């Protein structure tokens, strides 16, 4: 069994108005050290895949077909085997 953590964020070329607003809010709270911020989505799932390779390819398909819109978003996957 595997556990996957998937992070989806807007691509660098895409403006993130939500991130901008959160950044401004942090600045107004006095956190001047923050110079960039992006808001994203986080998915966590467990999979009954037989092996790591299969789990990776399944996740890739899931991201391409549903979880991520490649026009505006990019993603990273962290995969961990559960024992």
């Amino acid at each position, binding site marked *: 069994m595997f556990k996957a953590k998937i992070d989806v964020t*807007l691509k660098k*070329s*895409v*403006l993130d*108005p*939500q991130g901008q*607003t959160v950044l401004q809010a942090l600045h107004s709270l006095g956190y001047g050290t923050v110079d960039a911020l992006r808001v994203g989505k986080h998915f966590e799932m467990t999979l009954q895949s037989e092996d790591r390779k299969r789990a990776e390819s399944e996740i890739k398909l899931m991201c391409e077909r*549903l*979880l991520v*819109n490649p*026009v*505006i978003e990019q993603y990273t996957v962290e995969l961990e085997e559960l024992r």
Partner: protein
Amino acid sequence: MIVFPGSNCDTDCWHVLRDVLNIQVDFVWHKETNVGGVDLVVLPGGFSYGDYLRTGAIARFSPVMQAVQEHARQGRAVIGICNGFQVLLETGLLPGAMLRNRSLRFVCKHIYVKTENVTSLFTNRLKHGEILKIPIAHGEGNYFCDEQTLETLEQNNRIAFRYCSEQGTLGDEFNPNGSLAHIAGILNERGNILGMMPHPERSSESMLGSGDGRKIWESILSAANV
């Protein structure tokens, strides 16, 4: 008239098509696998599947969307309004994607759009540069695509409408959502699919403040020769 769970402009569109334009309209529940031999498929506005994940992202996998794609493949007309436009983008029938409005606010008001394309089956009753007063009501209408796609849209006259001032001036102050190149509506390559954020069904009777949207329905009728 396709109805997804969460559609909420379907009855308004149905009313305009049936009572204002006197044409036969049927509702098609999203579980159906056939749309029949209709001239036009309408993907209405609303919040299909509660806008979960991304607007239109789940509706795209509804069984009826296979039939809608087949209908479009045959060259028949499809109009997606607001959430319907978002569904068309997620399905890949139109290029690009929607982002949250730049203001992060849901915007519900009358706006003006400038007609850029007057040859499509959705716009043949309009004049080039004609300004239409049509309401919008959305939180995610900030159209985005990559530079190459934008160039293709521009060069092939596929931008149907752009947001503008009452006099037709383009500018950020007249763009209600931050949409790229002030885009309010685009066509597919073949010209038989239109996606637009403004609601023509809410501006097809002058008693509602504007009858301008009616020209879009009349264009479709005239192209379908019915």
